[in-house]
C-alpha cells in the first residue's frame, strides 16, 4: 500500500518549484556510500492480504472463555458507548493541545479527567496522565526524593514486582537506595521508617490481592518525615478508602481497570495525584481552567515551567507524550458508569472474588483468605504454578498468574474475578482444578 498522494505530475510540479531534478537529488546531503541500504523487509501488501495476515496472527492467540486473570490487569465490563466516544477520530488523531483555541475537546476532557482522579483518590491535583502505573510510581519516588532532598526510598514487597523493577531502574542512576520490606506473610507489617527516607511506597490492595493497613503505614512514613506514596487500583476506590482519607501524599497507579481493554498489557495509562503542596515538584502535563478574551471559560495547558520543553535538564521529568487517549477512555467510562455504576462494578468484583474463594474451599482447596482482599487472592497449588496456568489454558480457562518465589508462598497462583464472571465459569474453574489434582494443595501448602 501507499499513503502518499503524489501522482507523477505532482512530483514533477514540486521538483520544478524546488529547482531540483529528482527526489534522489534532495538526499544529496546523505553520506553517499551509505545510501540506499539493503533493508531486509518483505514487500508491501494490499489491504485485503494485510488483514488476512493479521487475522492469521490473531488466530494464534486465544481469547474468551472463563477468565480469572488479574495481577493488576482485569477485563471489566466496558460499555459500548465508551470506546465509541473516546475513539472518535478527532480525539485519536490530534496531538498535544498546544493550540488551546482549537483543542478544547482534549483540554476540557483532561480537566474532567483530573477532576475525577482527584475525587477518586481524595487528593488535590492530578496531572494529565503518565505512561503506566509502574512509571507513575517511579516518578512519584523521584518526586519524593526532590521534595525531601533525601536519597532512600522504601517499598513494600506487596507492590507489584514489575513496578518495583521499574522503580529500581529509575532510582539506580540517581544513586537513590531502594529498600524492600517483606510481607508477613500476606501483608506489610508495621513499618520502621528511618529518618533518611524520602518516600514509602505501599500498594493497596497489594500484588497478592490483600488489603494493607494504609493508615498505619502512612503514620509511620510521616513520623519519619517521608512522603507516603500509595499505589492504588483506581476502580477499587469506588469502594475502598481513598489515599486522601488515610493521609497519603501521593496516589499513583495504573488506569487500565477504569475502562481500557487489556491489550496485552498496553497501552493503558498511569495516574498521579498529589497534595497541593507538592505541585511545584509535580511531573507531567496539567490542564487548568481560565477565560478567553471574551470572558468565556476555556482550558489550557498550564504550569508548564515544570516541563522538559521549558526547563530542559532541570525539568521535573523528561515526560513529553503521555497517555492521553487511554486517560480519555477512563474519563468517558467513569462518565458512562457514574458513581453508582462504578461502585456496582467494584462490589460485583469483590462479591465474585469472595464467592470464588468460597467455592474453591468447598471444592477442597485452600485459598489464602486469612487476610482481607478485594478482587484477588492466592491459591497454593500442588504442581508448578506456570504449569497450572498452561493446563487451565488447554481447558479453555484463563487463570492462574504464578506467584513469584520471592513471596515464599511455595507454588501458588493468583486468582481474580470480576463482576463479569458467571457461576458456571467458577464451576468450570473449580472442576478443572479438582480434575488436575490441585485440590491436594491444602496439605502441600499448609503442611
Amino acid at each position, binding site marked *: 500500500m501507499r499513503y502518499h498522494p503524489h501522482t507523477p505530475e505532482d512530483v514533477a510540479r514540486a521538483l520544478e518549484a524546488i529547482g531540483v531534478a529528482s527526489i534522489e537529488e534532495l538526499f544529496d546531503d546523505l553520506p553517499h556510500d551509505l545510501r540506499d541500504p539493503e533493508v531486509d523487509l518483505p514487500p508491501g501488501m494490499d489491504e485485503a492480504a494485510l488483514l488476512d495476515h493479521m487475522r492469521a496472527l490473531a488466530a494464534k492467540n486465544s481469547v474468551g472463555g472463563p477468565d480469572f486473570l488479574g495481577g493488576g490487569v482485569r477485563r471489566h465490563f466496558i460499555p459500548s458507548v465508551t470506546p465509541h466516544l473516546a475513539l472518535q477520530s478527532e480525539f485519536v488523531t490530534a496531538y498535544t493541545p498546544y493550540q488551546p483555541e482549537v483543542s478544547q475537546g482534549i483540554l476540557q476532557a483532561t480537566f474532567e479527567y483530573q477532576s475525577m482522579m482527584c*475525587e477518586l483518590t481524595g487528593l488535590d491535583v492530578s496531572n494529565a496522565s503518565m505512561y503506566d502505573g509502574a512509571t507513575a510510581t517511579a516518578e512519584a519516588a523521584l518526586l519524593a526524593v526532590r521534595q525531601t532532598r533525601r536519597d532512600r526510598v522504601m517499598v513494600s514487597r506487596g507492590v507489584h514486582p514489575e513496578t518495583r523493577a521499574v522503580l529500581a531502574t529509575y532510582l539506580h542512576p540517581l544513586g537513590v537506595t531502594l529498600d524492600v520490606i517483606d510481607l508477613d506473610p500476606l501483608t506489610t507489617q508495621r513499618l520502621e521508617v528511618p529518618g533518611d527516607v524520602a518516600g514509602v511506597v505501599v500498594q493497596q490492595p497489594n500484588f497478592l490481592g490483600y488489603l494493607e493497613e494504609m493508615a498505619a503505614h502512612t503514620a509511620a512514613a510521616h513520623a519519619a518525615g517521608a512522603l507516603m506514596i500509595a499505589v492504588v487500583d483506581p476502580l477499587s476506590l469506588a469502594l475502598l478508602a481513598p489515599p486522601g482519607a488515610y493521609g497519603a501524599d501521593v496516589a499513583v497507579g495504573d488506569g487500565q481497570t477504569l475502562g481500557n481493554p487489556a491489550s496485552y*498489557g498496553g497501552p493503558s495509562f498511569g495516574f498521579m495525584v498529589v497534595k497541593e503542596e507538592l505541585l511545584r515538584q509535580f511531573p507531567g502535563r496539567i490542564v487548568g481552567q481560565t477565560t478567553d478574551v471574551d470572558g468565556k471559560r476555556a482550558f489550557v495547558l498550564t504550569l508548564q515551567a515544570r516541563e522538559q520543553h521549558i526547563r530542559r535538564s532541570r525539568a521535573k521529568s523528561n515526560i513529553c507524550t503521555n497517555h492521553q487517549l487511554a486517560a480519555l477512555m477512563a474519563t468517558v467510562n467513569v462518565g458512562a458508569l457514574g458513581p453508582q455504576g462504578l461502585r456496582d462494578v467494584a462490589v460485583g468484583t469483590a462479591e465474585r472474588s469472595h464467592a470464588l474463594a468460597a467455592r474453591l474451599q468447598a471444592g477442597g482447596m485452600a485459598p489464602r483468605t486469612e487476610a482481607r482482599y478485594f478482587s484477588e487472592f492466592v491459591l497454593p497449588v500442588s504442581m508448578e504454578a506456570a504449569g497450572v496456568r498452561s493446563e487451565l489454558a488447554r481447558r479453555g480457562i484463563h487463570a492462574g498468574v504464578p506467584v513469584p518465589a520471592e513471596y515464599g508462598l511455595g507454588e501458588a497462583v493468583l486468582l481474580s474475578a470480576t463482576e463479569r464472571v458467571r457461576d458456571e465459569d467458577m464451576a468450570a474453574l473449580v472442576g478443572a482444578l479438582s480434575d488436575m489434582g490441585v485440590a491436594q494443595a491444602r496439605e502441600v501448602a499448609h503442611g
Partner: protein
Amino acid sequence: MADFPVIYERSRPGRRGAQPPRPREFDIEAAVGSENLREEAPRLPEVSELDLVRHYTQLAHRQFSIDANFYPLGSCTMKYNPKVNEEAARLFQDLHPYQAPETAQGALQLMYELQNDLAAITGMDAFSLQPAAGAHGELAGVLMIRAYHESRGEGDQRRVVIVPDSAHGTNPATAAMAGYEVREVPTDPSGEVDLAAFQAAMGPDVAAVMLTNPNTLGLFERKIRKLADTAHAAGALLYYDGANLNAILGRVRPGDMGFDVVHLNLHKTFTTPHGGGGPGTGRVGVKAKLRDFLPVPVIEKRGDEYVIDEDRPRSIGRMRSHFGNFGNLVRAYTYIRALGREGLREVSGHAVLNANYLRVKLKEIGFRVPFDRVNMHEFVAQPPEGMRTLDIAKALLDFGMHPMTVYFPLTVKEAMMIEPTETESLETLDAYVDALRQVLERAAEDPDYLANAPYETPVRRLDEVKAARQPVLRHRFGEQGAPGS
C-alpha cells in the same frame, strides 16, 4: 453564548448511564472490613448515556485533528494514521498480559517480527519494544549507555552527555534523569552541529552524545561520521533520537552512520495515532555490544515457539510493566508490512519533497528561512520582520488549519517549524501557503488583525497568565453556581 458545560454540570443526583451487571447480595463490610471502605462516595458525574454521548461528541467537534485538518506540527510527523491499523489493533485488544504464552503466540510472533523489522530499518542489531514514548526510549537508551560504561569500569568517570543547543527538551531532561550532566554544543551557521565546539566538548568524561539527524532544524548533519568518529575515539557512545526518522527511511540507516543506540517514535514515523497527546511508543534499538543491557523482557524465538525472555542478568531492568504499548506495536507492524521495503523508502522521498516545496513557496510570499538550503522532512522559517509567530499561528486557526510548531528550536527567534509529511497533497500545501498569504495581506491592511486573531474558533485567545497564577486544576463543586455543582 453560555460556557460549554463540563460533564459535572450535566450531572444530576441519581441519574444513571450505562449499567454494569447488578451485584448479587453481598455483605461488603464483612468481606473487606468497614475500616477499609471509603466513607463518602466520590463525586463523579451522573449523566444519562445520551447526555454523555452529546457531551463527548460536541467536545470532539471542538478539537482539531489530522482527520479533519492539515496539521503540520514540526518534529511531530502528523501524517495520516491508516484506518486499517485500527482494524488490525482491534483483533488483539482482549489479550491479557499474563495469559499463558502458549495462548498468545500470535502476539509474541508479531513482537518478535517487529523487533527484527525495526532492526532492519535502522541498521541496529537488537530492539526492545518496551518504552512508552520517545522520551521514555531516550531514558532506556541512555541507561543502557550508562550500564555499558559501568560494565567497563568507566561508570564514574563518564559524567556528561553532550546535546546540541537545538536539541528537543527531552534530550537534556533525559540525560539528567539518567544522572548525567548536560553539555550543550552550539549550532554552526549552516545549521548543523559546530564541529570545532563539538571536538572541544568531547573528552574522557563524556558518556554519550545525543543527536537528532536530520536535526531539529530539518537539516541533515553532513558531518555525521566525523562526529561519530570523534565520539567513539573518546570512548563515548552515540545516541540517535529517532523523532525525525521519517526523513531518511530506507535512504540511510542510523546504524550505518555510526549510532550505537536509537529510539523510534512509532507515533511519528510509523503512524500510530497521537491520541491527543499519547500514548506514543518509543522502541529502542542497539548495536550488538549493548544487546545484553536491553530492558526486559525481550521476545525470542526458540525453535517454533516465541518466548518472553526476562532472564537477562545484565539488563538495565524494566522500563515499564508488561511488554510495552502492545496495541501500538500492532499498528506499527501493520503499517510496516503494508508498505514493505519500497513503500517505506517512498515515504521519505515524498516527505522531503513536500517539505522543500513548502519552504520554497513560503519564501515566495515573504517568510524568512534562516538556513536556506535543501532541507529534509521539515524546515524552520520565520515570519516577516516585525511579526510574531504566535500571531501568525493564531490567525491560521480561522482557516481550519493547524499551525506549525512554534518557538522551537529555541535557537531560532520566532521559529516556525513546519513538517507537512508525505501524506499531504500539493493542493493542501498550496492552500496552506494561500492562507499564510492572506494572513500577511490582512495584517498589512489592518494593524489590529493579528493581535486579535483568531476570530472564529470556539474560544479565542486564552488568558494563560491567569491559568498559571490562579490555578484551577479541577472542577470546583458548588463554586460556579452551576446546576451540577
